[in-house]
């Protein structure tokens, strides 16, 4: 089973390496939004600095939505879904493999974005253990949820507009939790960052399990 996961993940990552969508489109988009926030929020009054955790996670959410949308669309070429179904791979393995590929892409992106906010927003990067844990948990949560919902809208013509509508409200708790955790890491008082990180971990677990269970039904449909 885990070999199958690696197989699927490897395939998705190889497609990405060849097409370079993440590096050529998603990353520039993310950086662009970060820059636009600076235009909108006046860097001089300290608003940008204090809003950094939230803005960071919003950008990650949007980028994640693009990444999982892309993950779904690579399977939409003729016959690919049927091939996946008939291949004998367990649907859960397909799900985990695709999610793992998205996690890998998003983690690289987040590394870049952390650097970007450190530079552009003069963010007080600190609390690296909490930051790292939160990034891992949130990325898994976003990837698992995203791949599941991407599978849910596969094949529909309005897929691209429907996916954010479905995905973003579901991910709101991840946004809330990850932002609070980052705020604590950056030095805010009175926030129990590790507990919020725990919430995000719980969310990730729920959706990894849900995806493993439900992806099969979606591949059939």
């Amino acid at each position, binding site marked *: 089973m885990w070999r199958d996961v690696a197989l699927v993940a490897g395939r998705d990552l190889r497609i990405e390496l060849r097409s370079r969508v993440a590096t050529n489109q998603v990353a520039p988009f993310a950086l662009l939004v970060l820059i636009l926030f600076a235009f909108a929020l006046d860097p001089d009054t300290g608003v940008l600095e204090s809003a950094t955790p939230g803005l960071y996670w919003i950008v990650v959410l949007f980028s994640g939505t693009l990444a999982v949308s892309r993950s779904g669309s690579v399977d939409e070429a003729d016959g690919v879904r049927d091939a996946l179904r008939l291949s004998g791979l367990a649907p859960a393995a397909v799900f985990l493999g695709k999610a793992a590929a998205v996690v890998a892409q998003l983690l690289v992106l987040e590394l870049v974005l952390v650097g970007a906010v450190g530079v552009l927003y003069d963010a007080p990067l600190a609390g690296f253990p909490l930051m790292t844990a939160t990034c891992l948990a949130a990325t898994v949560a976003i990837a698992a949820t995203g791949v599941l919902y991407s599978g*849910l809208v596969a*094949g529909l013509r309005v897929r691209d507009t429907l996916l954010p509508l*479905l995905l973003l409200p579901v991910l709101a*708790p991840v946004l*809330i939790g990850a932002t*609070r955790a980052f705020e604590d890491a950056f030095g805010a008082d009175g926030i129990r960052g590790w507990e919020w990180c725990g*919430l995000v971990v719980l*969310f990730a677990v729920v959706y990894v399990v849900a995806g493993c269970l*439900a992806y099969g039904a979606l591949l059939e449909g």
Partner: protein
Amino acid sequence: MSDVSDPTETEAEAEAEVPAHTGSRATQVLGLAALAALALWVLYGLVWSPPDREMGDLVRLLYVHVPVAILFYAGAGLTTFASLMWLRRRSPGWDALAVAAAELGVVFGALTLLTGSIWGKPTWNTFWTWDARLTSTALLEVLLIGYLAVRRVDPSPSGGSTRASILGLLLFPNVIIVHFSVDWWRSLHQKATVTRLDPTIEGDMLVALMVGMAAGGLVFAWLLIHRFRVAWLEQQVERHDLDAAVAARRAEGQLSTNEPEAQPA
């Protein structure tokens, strides 16, 4: 719940045929009960119950807001349950129930937000406040709207039901996680004063609330039956259109067929 025409019924039976609307004896009885309860609710809510010590007459909004919020969650919960049953049994009745419950949920969710907002304006001097309950409700309302969107958008008859039922099932963890996290988040900023929404209710005020719940529940049930029948009819129309298309194809291929006359669209 069904009025299927039955040749053994006596001639005295006025309704030997299935009517061309979604009403029935059951809905008539239910509807009358609902109207009676509604009348009582208006009386208790607006006239017979006293104003609250702290909130004054604004408490009367709660007699709408609380029942409507509960029915919103009931609708969402029913959607999830019906989705689960559909995945297990694959019978179209469960599918129809799921979409009916979801639509009712959206309506009552909108009402919850509306009444909460109207209550908020004189209380907090703003139409919206990121109060835990309102925020959770808003998010869940969006989730339910997303569910309906997925149903509308799928051209294939059964595929849409599968997708939607997964979405419906996912409402369950979503509701819980959203509720919990929003609540926790807002408790960081708002202390005890938040729960102005829960005054100590007793006496006639409690009666008003209970009557409101009863009235709301009856209206919900009545609407659910009608909306379920509408969903059922939509399935039948689709099935007939499909049969007609198949029949037309067969006729083109000049194969013999026993299909009934295609219904005019």
